[in-house]
């Protein structure tokens, strides 16, 4: 069937905005990464690969921010996926209670990162915070500390906050995935006399792989994009111990006025995300079966 050429007009408004405010800046990042532009001067020089070699050999904070980001990602991905899956298995059936609980667990997702940052800064506050007070009450006062001020602890404190923020959302994805598993498979497993663990291992888990792929991939990307939360809670401190790649780009560009160098880091950032996404899909795809 012939379609009227007017169909092409439907692309125009979106495509124009997308080109100007997304494609063009993204490609410019690549261009500026080969320059020493400060972001304001009318002129700049091409410096070849200098920015890239500086990032990898002359900038310990950048290397540290990659490490922090990976650390943050690992803790969040593991903890969040486990919490979400464990609780999804409990609130799987639709009853009044489980529907209420799912809505409650999901609630933090609708808050802004800034709000969540304030709430958890208060929880972690060394003198006012709930956390230290609870530890005192439980007789574990020796564990009490400055959760965000301690350079060894801060990145984990942020990771816990991130899990509190988004685990409910992942839980819902798991519930949707679990509810889509055909019930007769469980009947069969029961008749065959499979144990609970065997049923989980042989029926639930393989069929859950697509949801797990989504949760892990999404959580990973989220932990690289956690700019708002980190920026509002620690600004990358203390001592750059919570500097992640995104906050470091902001620092270099808007505090250090090194747009060229910040662009080079942005490009590296994009490559890192592409590699991780690719590896994850490859790893998790192999676990998929169809039914």
């Amino acid at each position, binding site marked *: 069937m012939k379609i009227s050429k007017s169909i092409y007009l439907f692309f125009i408004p979106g495509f124009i905005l997308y080109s100007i405010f997304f494609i063009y*800046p993204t490609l410019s990042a690549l261009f500026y990464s080969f320059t020493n532009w400060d972001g304001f001067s009318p002129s700049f020089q091409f410096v070849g690969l200098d920015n890239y070699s500086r990032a990898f050999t002359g900038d310990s904070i950048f290397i540290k921010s990659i490490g922090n980001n990976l650390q943050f990602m690992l803790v969040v991905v593991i903890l969040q996926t486990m919490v979400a899956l464990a609780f999804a298995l409990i609130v799987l059936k639709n009853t009044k209670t489980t529907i209420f609980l799912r809505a409650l667990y999901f609630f933090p997702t609708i808050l802004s990162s800034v709000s969540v940052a304030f*709430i958890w800064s208060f929880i972690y*506050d060394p003198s006012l915070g709930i956390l230290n007070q609870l530890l005192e009450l439980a007789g574990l006062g020796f564990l009490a500390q400055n959760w965000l001020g301690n350079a060894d602890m801060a990145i984990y404190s942020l990771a816990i906050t991130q899990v509190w923020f988004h685990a409910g959302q992942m839980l819902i994805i798991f519930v949707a995935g679990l509810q889509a598993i055909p019930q007769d498979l469980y009947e069969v497993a029961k008749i065959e006399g499979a144990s609970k663990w065997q049923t989980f291992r042989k029926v639930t888990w393989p069929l859950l792989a697509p949801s797990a792929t989504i949760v892990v991939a999404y959580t990973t990307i989220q932990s690289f994009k956690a700019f708002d939360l980190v920026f509002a809670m620690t600004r990358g401190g203390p001592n750059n111990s919570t500097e992640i790649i995104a906050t470091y780009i902001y620092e270099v560009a808007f505090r250090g006025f090194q747009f060229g160098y910040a662009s080079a880091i942005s490009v590296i950032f994009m490559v890192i995300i592409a590699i991780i996404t690719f590896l994850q899909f490859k790893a998790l795809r192999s676990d998929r079966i169809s039914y």
Partner: protein
Amino acid sequence: MLFRKFSLAVYALLILIPLLVVVLTSVKTLQQTFANPLGIPEGGLQFNNYVNIFQEQTMAGYFMNSSIVTLFSVSLTLLFAAMIAYGITRLNNWFGNLLFLLFTLGMMVPAQVSMVPLYSLMLDLNLTNSLVGLILVNIATTLPIAVFILTGFMKTLPKELFEASTMDGAGNWKVFTTIVVPLSLPSLSATAIFLFVMHWNDLLYPLLFITDNAYKTLPLALLEFQGQYATNYPMLFTGVIIASAPMVVAYIFLQRFFVAGITAGAVKG
């Protein structure tokens, strides 16, 4: 069984207690908070923080800015994305697929990658300190996810629908507005809620482009209260409650749609 119930209760409390603390702290004075950070104070509760924050800050203005930016960002993203999704679905050829790929690739690129050149572009176009500027950037950056969700949905619509009405002489615009949009309402509403949460809560773009108080949105204003009030948590939490109120009210009434919408965004993003 008991262990399961216990775990559910613990998780529920982990969500509820911080939220209750926020509400409670917002009706305490700073002195009461320092004296007894978690309990109910002796002197009784008061609502002065709410009065003060409106006096000390241009809260109504921030609220207005957030509303305008969110309203236009959500509705225009939705409109343009639905048009693109319809175009891709209708064409159903290499050109459509190429566009689809171009938009979906955009979902993988974090906003921080392009923020540096985007900032200088906005300066050149004179679009900093402007709500219009924020709206344009919001549309461009959330189009990918919206196109992705909506195209996925529209591809499931029966082709015969489009073809029959085209035969009846209806133009593309007519088919789009009278058939595709009404049939896509479930997907459109899910996407709308996803976009609503994203745009209402966004911090990065206001942080980059807005320095003038007259154009600040709630998340940015809130962030700057931190500089002003430091650890005056009663004031900070009053701000948190005011900034979150519309979202919380909407969530209570449209809970099912929220869960569906945000999950659609996640699953497809």
